[in-house]
């Protein structure tokens, strides 16, 4: 069984209130030197069968139509060892 990870992040030009809240809190907690924080989602999919090109194409399609709304989000698909 292989694991495929889909990372979904808000597009850079879109406001990310969650990331901003984290970033604004960091100095108060004593952490300096982080100039930006973005918060997104990580999906770990356990894939039955081989993760070949066909499977990846389908997962990319699933990410594009379902896991992400590409009006406001970008996504990346990665195979984990």
């Amino acid at each position, binding site marked *: 069984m292989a694991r495929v990870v889909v990372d979904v992040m808000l597009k850079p*030009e879109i406001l990310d*209130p969650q990331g901003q809240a984290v970033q604004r809190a960091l100095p108060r907690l004593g952490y300096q030197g982080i100039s930006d924080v973005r918060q997104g989602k990580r999906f770990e999919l356990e894939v039955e069968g081989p993760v070949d090109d066909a499977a990846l194409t389908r997962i990319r399609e699933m990410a594009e139509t379902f896991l992400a709304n590409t*009006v406001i989000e970008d996504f990346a698909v990665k195979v984990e060892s």
Partner: protein
Amino acid sequence: MTLDTVSHAAGTPETALPWAELGLKEDEYERIREILGRRPTGAELAMYSVMWSEHCSYKSSKVHLKQFGEKAPETDALLVGIGENAGVVDVGQGYAVTFKVESHNHPSYIEPYQGAATGVGGIVRDILAMGARPVAVMDPLRFGAADHPDTKRVLPGVVAGIGGYGNCLGLPNIGGEVVFDPCYQGNPLVNALCVGVMKHEDIHLAKASGAGNKVILYGARTGGDGIGGVSVLASETFDSTKPAKRPAVQVGDPFQEKLLIECTLEIFREDLVAGIQDLGGAGLSCATSELASAGSGGMRVELDTVPLRDSSLSPEEILMSESQERMCAIVEPGKVDRFLEICEKWDVIATVIGEVTEGEQLEIFWHGDKIVDVPPRSVAHEGPTYHRPYARPDWQDALQADDAGALPRPESGEELRKHVLQVVASPNQASKSWITDQYDRFVQGNTVLAQPEDAGMVRIDEESNLGVAVSTDGNGRYTKLDPYTGAQLALAESYRNVAAAGAKPLAVSDCLNFGSPEDPAVMWQFAEATRGLADACLELGTPVTGGNVSLYNQTGETAIHPTPVVAVLGVIDDVHRRTPMGFAEDGQLIYLLGDTRDELGGSAWSQVVHDHLGGLPPRVDLERERLLAEILVAASRDGMIDAAHDLSDGGLAQALTESCLKGGHGARIVVPDSIDPFVLLFSESAGRAIVTVPRSEEVRFNDMCGARGLPVTRIGIVDGDGIDVQGQFVLPLAELREAHEATIPALLA
């Protein structure tokens, strides 16, 4: 990149600008050149194009909306009328209430969660800008067919967005509507209403006066949200290296908005602003030009001081950005420090971006260069006006001739019972608690009534128990059959709902959702509906205080049903006298108030049982509506009734079901000889309600109705654990409940 300054524009008259891509017509562009005496700069073009859009200028609708002012009833209750961010109504004891409905239809189709969330955010800022503390929200919604796969995408997202934003702001959601119809498949309607409360002396207006006063922008940083259109200016004409695509959808930050609310209320308490405006559609273009236009002088703005989220934004984009959670205030110089201090307390970014001037022009600078120099009124208040052609569509006659009265009717008690179950279980008539349970209705601790009651009601004074009630209603099916009557029915129903809750109806706000104004048939629907609504408001004595128009709700050639949504605000002196809808005690008498006629055109029964839309909607009798409301309010004040429920779609069958299930008590109904049981149960005649009367009050109640000339019929008694229509059928409450409550979760959960 060369900056397109005013002097540059004056020296380069031949430069072509992308006015058509920005949605301007050739004659509109010519008018801009005429106003300015030169070609506009890119920034000026950006401002005019967005402010002269349908959405901001009401160019197709304003010739019709005028009637709301022209036909406004005489009333002392209206403190601020149409034209401001929202109207303000005097509710007594020194209190004023402001309320308004707005639409966020299109964005909610593209990105349901954020589209709906930012819709709530926008209307809340409108209410806040009037000087009021927002105290409740409502959400009239329309979706495509309940079983259509895309409804499963749109509805849960919209509901989560409304809840996610409103719950996080701490605003109780006290009512709304959910209606399914295939006509909304590609055009869901997401309307949002907000109510706010203030003292009379706290009313604030959107105007910039007093030369030397500072212009302060506060709230979120400005980003590249919602400037899809204007990016053509940046990318094609002036600088081709920028990203061409900017998102048309904005992401809301309800936490930021909550801070903005508390911060602004503290600023009001210390009387620190001379004028204030929220930033909504058209962002800074709108706020600066409207403030300046309504004020006495001019305004000067240093655009490069605006705090940005994205440093690559061009001046045009900054002017057009629709980033959420921002406000603009006009502040006397001596009060600026305290203003900024309060913002700092709430972690709200605030920046002086300009000042009010002696002059008459709105001047905007970018690093010292003048890029805008316009008469503000020409941008904000003197946009184009269209007299669009309209014509009664040729299919209207055939639609009205297709009489619902001719549909086959149930012929036995057993069949009647089946139809009752079918109607109360249909998606439009079924319980919406799966949806409304996702909204906080208790926060602020003043909620007296909330969904599924006829109207939402909140207490506004803890000492005196003064309260206000609001209802929103609209019926696209009725309005399709007859737009003039349909709009009046929407008002009548909303008015009746408020009265059924025990409150005296005072004022109206509306959201007019229609198809394309370029279609003469749609324009006719719009003209008829506004005429109907204005006439009815005059007759009922309830002025329109403000509202919103949403056009172009259509897919290809097919428009949605014309859907005017009407909100009525009422006042109740003591919320202890409110009337709930649930049957609370066995033995109380059930009275039907008003006349029941054979009226099934556009009815729920015709839709559910026959999938039919045709004929005429129920008749409107506004004099009767007014009388009914007076009786409902008087009976509640004098303690003659314990429950009341308005009759509308689904007729008596639906109203009885809801009152029985809410109260957990059954009803024994005796069909009067004069009326057919089917008509009694399913007719949707307007001007009706059911009430329960304790036996001790029966004589007094009958005397009051008799003296005032309201027909009332005793139709039964609260009793048992089912609806027993004698001689016809018995329906156990458990079976009714299952039918009524299982539908929506089964479709959506």
